[in-house]
């Protein structure tokens, strides 16, 4: 299938795709899979009981990537998809997901993704998910991902979730279970502007001995936008967990940041840091003494903060 310029731009924005990738991929457009390819080590199989796919990475697969972007271009469409990722034992792969919405009309366009990710024993997964929206100011763009992650014994996963432009409303729920010797790191980067709203709720259960979990959230709220961030770490065994949420607030924005630590074992070490603040005047002045104009200094601080 040939993609239009608009579709190509969306795919580039959410999955850095400028051509069809050589490995496994599934491209979903306006509620249907329009391009799909498995590789010898990564099977992509459509679900038979509901919309969505199973992505199955064979044990021992290393150095491969799978792209599963979703794009919506029709105004008023509500897309619901169920995806299951099974990352086989001792494999090491990159998953690039993400959703881009172009809504030129006045009706609401919405994508709800329900994901289950299982990282099998000894496997390593890097998961990148970007959200992006564009179009007319009248048509709302809504994205609601719900993800359950299981990190098995000795496995490692890093999930990077980014939303920097054009999504009016998002509610992201991520729940994770980390087993013995497993490790999970969740990195969130979020920018809201105008009247956008974003809610992110992360819950990591450190259920295995010597498991670890980390949540790093950086966000910028501009104009009259509203953000809410909740991060819960539950230490059920000897484990280490850390939550760090930093936010820059601008204009009339509102931010609510709620880290929560629950230790159900005397050997759980759980920590959190949370900070919300404006850009400090001395930071702007410092960059201006190096020759940047004020607007350039603000842009530099924000872009590096969210990098």
């Amino acid at each position: 299938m040939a993609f239009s310029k608009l579709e190509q731009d969306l795919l580039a924005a959410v999955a850095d795709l400028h051509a069809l990738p050589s490995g496994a991929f599934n491209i979903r457009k306006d509620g249907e899979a329009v391009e799909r390819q498995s590789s010898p080590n990564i099977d992509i199989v459509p679900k038979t009981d509901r919309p969505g796919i199973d992505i199955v990475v064979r044990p021992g697969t290393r150095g491969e990537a799978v792209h599963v972007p979703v794009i919506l271009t029709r105004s008023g469409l509500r897309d619901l998809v169920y995806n299951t990722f099974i990352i086989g034992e001792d494999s090491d792969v990159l998953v690039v997901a993400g959703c881009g919405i172009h809504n030129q009309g006045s009706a609401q366009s919405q994508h709800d993704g329900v994901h289950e990710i299982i990282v099998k024993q000894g496997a390593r997964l890097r998961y990148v998910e970007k959200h992006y929206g564009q179009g007319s100011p009248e048509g709302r763009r809504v994205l609601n991902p719900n993800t359950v992650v299981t990190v098995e014994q000795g496995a490692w996963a890093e999930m990077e979730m980014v939303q920097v432009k054009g999504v009016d409303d998002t509610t992201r729920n991520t729940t994770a279970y980390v087993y013995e010797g497993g490790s999970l790191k969740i990195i969130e980067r979020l920018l809201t502007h105008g009247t956008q709203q974003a809610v992110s709720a992360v819950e990591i259960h450190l259920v295995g001995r010597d498991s670890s979990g980390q949540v790093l959230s950086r966000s910028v709220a501009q104009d009259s936008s509203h953000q809410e961030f909740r991060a819960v770490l539950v230490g059920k065994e000897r484990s280490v967990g850390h939550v760090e949420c930093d936010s820059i607030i601008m204009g009339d924005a509102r931010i609510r940041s709620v880290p929560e630590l629950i230790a159900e074992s005397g050997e759980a070490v759980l920590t959190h840091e949370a900070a919300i603040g404006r850009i400090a005047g001395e930071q702007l002045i410092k960059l201006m003494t190096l020759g940047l104009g004020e607007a350039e200094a603000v842009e530099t601080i924000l872009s590096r903060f969210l990098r």
Partner: protein
Amino acid sequence: MLELRNVSLNFNGGDGAGIEVLRGVNLQLERGKLYAITGPNGGGKTSLAKVVMGIYTPSQGQVLLDGEDITGLSISERARRGIAYAFQHPPRFKGLTVADIMKIARPDLDSVHMRGYLRDVGLCPEDYLERDLGPGLSGGEIKRIEVAQLLARDAEVTIFDEPEAGVDLWTIQKLLAIIVKRYKGNRQGLAVIITHNEQFLPACDEIILIDEGTVQGQGPAQMMWPLLRDDIVCKQRAQCVGIGGRIDGI
């Protein structure tokens, strides 16, 4: 040449009354010279530097660079005209790396020179280039990175505000050597070090003493330094016996 003509600076006090931080300061600083500005805490040294950089706007007087009145220029415009200032307490940034700030300081800086400037201030580039200018760095490390930025900028007027503060003794020697080598006798520009350090002061060409918002004395370092040193010793002794100390000749 950098010139300050009758510069005064007032801040509003909490009770609405003005606080006079600088009072009619006149200075002429020449290219090719390394100047030290010293004096008691709260005497106006940093305020003077910030007036030159454009961070503070003087309540009266003029700042001139090579005869051009730059009093009305913004901070960014002055930076682009060739004035550089290393902060006494540089701010920290989350997400901005050492390599980022060096590139902002000098956009055309290549990797070889960037590494060289970091080595000049006693930092191993491999350990620092990708590190955030955030809370993970010590005060001394931040100060050294601040100095490295100014070395990279190669500006016409370079002002270091207490570069030695928070820096270990070994690195102070290194910083002094690099600053002296770089700026003393260099006709491309001039440099000013705000300092209390006994190694920096005699190493400069001239020492300017500022106290209570005015220039109390200025002269060649070989003449000023012995007087200052004796004054400091005298005041320390006076404090010990509980009397006021005063030195003639400055």
